[in-house]
């Protein structure tokens, strides 16, 4: 590898600029509040701050060293905590070049090397000359070519979302809850304004039935109805004209009534398939399908893609067979054992019971609200009943329920890590929490199934290990025959 190098000294300035931009609000506050004082002492404070920011920029420039070579880039950085970062060519997803105002002034360039992981933000060379940038690109350019051989031109398959299903999806949309909480926070923000304005209060008192519980119930109903209408319209606008198209190497999803959106998802980027059965949809036999894909950088939206907003249960198998080759329904053979039921119910009913007790104490409500507590027992039982894991061949299925029942299918090659987690009470009952992570967006998503039999640990570990061994063999085969992954 070549010698360690530093960035262009302008990087110190760029870093200082970044820090100033990051703390702009604080600086403004200091300026505004400081200038109220009569003497000019605050100016000195301000100047001192500026100088120290520059100094920190200079120090971070001094500590930031990098070298490239042998398909790797090594970065050492950090003023107080030293960090060493090693990036390999095989993992680099994209190399971004950008030109900020400071960089443009000196004819420099900012290089962001992005991997699929979360630390990709740290591999940023804030100012280097164009020659160095070229060198980095040459060294880290991925050998992967996007143009694949198109062996056969497959006929495009298209699937649309029928109007009936769109309406149903909008009616039972899960965004209802989100809209409701958003509206509630908005209203609580508005409250002080309403309290202050005399006019609004007068208008309020004019209303008949003010102060009766029935009136407040009605207001609450209206509020909920309003939220529901919003979520209904939102879903209609969002998923109108929904089409799912299968092309040679992936899926193309188009949707949107006014703002049209198109997502192209190559098959090799799909990390996991999620079948979500909403609490309102499941009783009627409807579900939706979502996909996780590995994105990078700002492409967060691509992390979770809705493949089908609504689908009758019996159409799941044919749709998956047609549009998602390599996936099919996987039997969920391992269920949460009976000895976990008590634990589960204690957790759900206990949580809700605590909340109710707090509400009752705080607002002095009638004991009748404890009726709400009864369904939590049922909910606990549902959560327990639905927790299941299964594997078939090289695919795995995990099913969990929070409110909606979610079944995740993951290919063995897509699992980033598998872990087993046991708390003390879990160990008493020989239970374990299985968790599996896949890449999703620039962070990743973990699926955890609680309270499974801990005798499953060796089963799943050896299943997972087998993949690793097999996979190594297959990668060796790959590189010797075709040379492209």
């Amino acid at each position, binding site marked *: 590898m070549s010698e360690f190098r530093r960035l262009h000294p302008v990087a110190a300035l760029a870093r200082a600029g970044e820090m100033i931009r990051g703390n702009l609000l604080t600086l403004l506050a200091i300026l505004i509040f400081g200038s109220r004082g009569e003497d000019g002492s605050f100016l000195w404070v301000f100047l001192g701050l500026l100088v120290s920011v520059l100094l920190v920029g200079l120090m971070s420039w001094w500590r930031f060293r990098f070298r490239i070579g042998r*398909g*790797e880039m090594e970065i050492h950085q950090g003023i*107080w*905590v*030293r*960090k*060493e*970062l*090693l*990036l*390999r060519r*095989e*993992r680099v997803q994209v190399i971004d070049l950008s030109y900020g105002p400071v960089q443009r002034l000196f004819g420099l360039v900012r290089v962001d090397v992005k*991997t*699929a*992981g*979360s*630390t990709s933000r740290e591999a940023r060379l804030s100012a280097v000359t164009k020659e160095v940038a070229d060198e980095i690109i040459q060294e880290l350019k991925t050998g992967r070519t996007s143009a694949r051989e198109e062996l056969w031109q497959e006929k495009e398959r298209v699937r649309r979302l029928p109007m009936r299903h769109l309406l149903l999806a909008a009616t039972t949309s899960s965004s209802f809850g989100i809209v409701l909480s958003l509206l509630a926070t908005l209203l609580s923000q508005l409250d002080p304004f309403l309290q202050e304005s005399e006019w609004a209060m007068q208008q309020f008192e004019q209303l008949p039935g003010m102060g009766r519980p029935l009136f407040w119930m009605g207001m609450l109903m209206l509020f909920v109805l309003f939220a529901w209408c919003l979520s209904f319209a939102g879903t209609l606008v969002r998923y109108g004209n929904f089409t799912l198209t299968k092309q040679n190497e992936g899926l193309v999803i188009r949707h949107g009534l006014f703002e049209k959106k198109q997502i192209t998802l190559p098959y*090799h980027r799909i990390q996991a398939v999620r079948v979500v059965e909403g609490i309102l949809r499941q009783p009627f036999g409807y579900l939706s399908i979502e996909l996780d894909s*590995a994105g990078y950088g700002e492409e967060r939206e691509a992390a979770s893609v809705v493949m089908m907003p609504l689908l009758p249960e019996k159409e799941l198998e044919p749709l998956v067979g047609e549009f998602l080759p390599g996936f099919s329904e996987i039997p969920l053979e391992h269920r949460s054992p009976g000895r976990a039921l008590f634990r589960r119910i204690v957790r759900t009913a206990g949580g809700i019971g605590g909340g109710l007790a707090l509400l009752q104490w705080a607002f002095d409500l009638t004991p009748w609200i404890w009726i709400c507590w009864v369904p939590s027992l049922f909910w606990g039982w549902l959560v327990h009943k639905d927790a299941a894991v299964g594997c078939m061949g090289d695919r795995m299925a995990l099913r969990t329920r929070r409110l909606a029942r979610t079944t995740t299918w993951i290919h063995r*090659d*897509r*699992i*980033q*890590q*598998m*872990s*087993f*987690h*046991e*708390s*003390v009470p879990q*160990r008493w009952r*020989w239970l374990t929490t299985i968790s599996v*992570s*896949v*890449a*999703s967006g620039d*962070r*990743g*998503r*973990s699926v955890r199934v609680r309270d499974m*039999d*801990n*005798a499953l*640990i*060796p*089963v799943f*570990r*050896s299943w*997972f*290990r087998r*993949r*690793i*061994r097999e*996979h*190594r063999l297959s*990668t060796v085969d*790959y590189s010797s025959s075709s040379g492209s*992954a």
Partner: protein
Amino acid sequence: MERTLLKAAGTPGGFFYGRLLPAPDPADSVPSGRLSPRIIRVWQWGAALRSSLLPIAWGLYALYQSPQSSLHWLLWGALLALLILFWLITVFWHPVFRWKHWRYSIDRNQIELHYGVWFRQHTVIPLNRVQHVDTRQGPLLRAMKVSAVAVSTAATVHEIPALESKRAQEVRQQISNFARLAQEDV
């Protein structure tokens, strides 16, 4: 008997071993790599500092309180005793056991981490999922001449909290070399 034998071989416990399930694969045993014992001191100092703040603040508050009945003092005393007990456990006992339960292994296929005193965790990371490896060293770790090694996949970051600096470099290079052999996207 069978169970004790399995236990001795270092397998995770459980009622079903050797009963409903076949005896576990020897590769399922607990990994052998241990952290540098010097991390115990680091954790102890950290815990001592962190868990001292609350009692000190509280003690100062108690001092400035006006004197009250003896029952009041008894309560304060009991609480203080509890706090001291908690302090002793977190400072002296917990770091040692944390070290005792921390195991790792790295081979050409995977990284395995076993750790946790109260919450046990076993993690398996296939090497061909590793995105990059970095070593980290804060001031306390530097004073003890140990480094932490962080392994990032596309979804998660896992940290081996303390290896002797030389060993950390070795491990980093080792993972990097093994992982280079496996070429595949995300």
